[in-house]
């Protein structure tokens, strides 16, 4: 399943809720304000690293660029996708869960 998260993990618990309920083998895509969670050195980095042992985490490049966050700041293992990649992920997965 593809999970998208569009809220900052520092403001809401959407990402926490997502990570708690996403099964191994999920794809998790951070979009809009959610992209701020993908940066190295934050208070939530270890949660992402742990999740990536069993699932994949992606981040939407255009939303990252809008917030002045460069790709070299990302937690290792997180993959950047563009809008086309977003569509591919949605198509590859049987369902999409949009955490708000």
């Amino acid at each position: 399943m593809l999970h998208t998260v569009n809220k900052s993990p520092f403001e809401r618990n959407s990402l926490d809720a997502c990570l708690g309920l996403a099964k191994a083998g999920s794809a998790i895509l951070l979009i809009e304000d959610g992209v701020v969670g993908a940066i190295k050195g934050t208070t939530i980095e270890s949660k992402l690293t742990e999740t990536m042992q069993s699932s994949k985490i992606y981040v939407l490049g255009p939303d990252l660029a809008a917030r002045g966050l460069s790709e070299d700041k990302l937690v290792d293992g997180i993959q950047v996708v563009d809008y086309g990649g977003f569509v591919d992920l949605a198509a590859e997965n049987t369902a999409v869960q949009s955490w708000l």
Partner: protein
Amino acid sequence: MSEGTIKKFMYVNRKPPYGTVYALESLEVVLIGAAFDQDVSLAFIGDGVYQITKGQSTSDIGMKNFSPTYNALGDYDITKLYVEQESLTERGLSVDDLMDIVYEDEDDDWAEKPSIRVVSRAELADVIAGQDILLNF
């Protein structure tokens, strides 16, 4: 408001830009409110620090990049932008990730001076305690 005492106004910004309209709305209110000649400062805490990161590029999300407008604040006599150090650290950021926002000091031969003041949470608490009016976005 041509007479009366000058009050200390602080705009407190806690949201990232673009995902919601808060950051832009705050900036617009700040610019409009600047006409009233009050003692204005801005605080960027929590996710608000993302509003003033350098290198923002919005061409691929189809929204206007309003980050250059923070550089105009000095022209509006808004020269105190407090940024909470802890908020940066919690987010894996440092002051080097922020724009170099400056103002020109009219009383010092237009010398360029930094507007951003990185302060600790305790220092910011003191600054907030000294305000007359606080506006939250």
